[in-house]
């Protein structure tokens, strides 16, 4: 675990073509400074996994606007302020995989938890299950879903200690704890890095084992 001196240090070495997990639900929990650093870092041809496809002109929207993203995997791209994504999508300049929100969360969890695949009842009988394997279990139909893993996760949390233990704040927690388990390199921006021992061990949400780089912004 490295406490980085800048967001740029936290995203160093990101390769073109990487799968990047980006936390946040709208702007709550969105690691804006890390995404900005990734824009400066220059990696391109990225696949981004995130609940939304960018809001307004900052954060993920700015990464999209910079032309660095080949594909977005998300549950809810279309919002009142998703004009950047909307334009790219309508122009055929970006690929989209829509995943039900709970399935997105569970696929990320499976990626972090070493689960090979799982049967979900969500989406059965809909467009989003087309072409997917289904199975009846105890009289109910399920669709087979596979894990999602990233090369890099960019996460917005509240505080970290020097071992990388994390706590989040209110509904900004959302996808952070899942994405932290499901990427090769996990970079986290926090409001403050506190001394090891200052976080309540009962209230740590993401243990430091999952975290590679932390930066206070």
């Amino acid at each position, binding site marked *: 675990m490295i406490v980085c001196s800048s967001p740029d240090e936290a995203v160093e070495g990101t390769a073109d073509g990487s799968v990047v997990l980006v936390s946040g*639900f*709208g*702007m*709550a*929990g969105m690691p804006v400074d890390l995404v900005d650093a990734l824009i400066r870092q220059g990696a391109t041809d990225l696949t981004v996994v995130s*609940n939304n496809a960018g809001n307004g002109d900052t954060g993920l929207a700015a990464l999209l606007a910079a032309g660095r993203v080949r594909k977005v995997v998300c*549950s*809810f*791209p*279309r*919002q009142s302020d998703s004009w950047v*994504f*909307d334009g790219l*999508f*309508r122009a055929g300049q970006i690929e*989209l995989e*829509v*995943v*039900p*929100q*709970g*399935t*997105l*969360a*569970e696929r*990320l*969890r499976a990626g972090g938890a070493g689960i090979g695949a799982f049967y*979900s*009842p*969500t*989406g*059965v*009988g*809909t*467009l*989003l299950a087309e072409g997917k394997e289904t199975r009846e279990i105890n009289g109910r139909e399920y669709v087979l879903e596979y894990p999602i893993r990233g090369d890099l996760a960019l996460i917005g949390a509240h505080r970290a200690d020097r071992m990388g233990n994390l706590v*989040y*704040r*209110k*509904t*900004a*927690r*959302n*996808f*952070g*704890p*899942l994405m932290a388990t499901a990427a090769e390199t996990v970079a986290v921006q926090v409001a403050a890095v506190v001394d090891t021992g200052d976080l309540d061990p009962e209230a740590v*949400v993401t243990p430091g084992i999952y975290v590679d780089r932390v930066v206070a912004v």
Partner: protein
Amino acid sequence: MSLSKSALAAVVARDIPPGSYVNLGIGLPTLVAEHLDPTSGVVLHTENGMLNMGPAAEPGAEDPDLTNAGKIPVTELPGAAYFHHADSFAMMRGGHLDVCVLGAFQVSARGDLANWHTGAPDAIPAVGGAMDLAIGAKRVFVMTTMFAKDGSPKIVPECTYPLTAPACVDRIYTDVATLQVTGAGLEVLELHDIEYATLADRLELPLKDARQ
């Protein structure tokens, strides 16, 4: 007069049993919260990771880290709990919510729900938590106007829009009627300023009059 949005929300709120754990969908269903009796013990879930959500935040007191599923700043009530998305959707998928209230483009006679995608060729599909909610809650209430702006009914023999989930809706609350989905079709539970015959005539499906 058919029900106003607020009056419709009051009807839905009336039918939520005290002590229920409830998820209110984005848009119209959000209004239901204003009509819940604070002493009823109804607990609101928001799928972005919270139980015991309070009302919208007062202007000036918004917290960007505390929003509902529609990304509107909200508040926290005593007894709140926060959790991540996998835990939040496990709560839904696992059948732990008593009621969810969802908007709809269309509902079919057997309770199929279409509320996420118009199917238009240029539409950007966005599902969010709609499918998870539709299959997860113990009871799914739909809240919508009975007729689209062009006058066509939203309660239809078969949905023409892409489905959110098949056979998931329990009850349909509209501005002119409340309908119960049963294995044998739709039953009318109450009417608001419309004659039964008129409604039956405008809907292209069989109805049963089950008004008390």
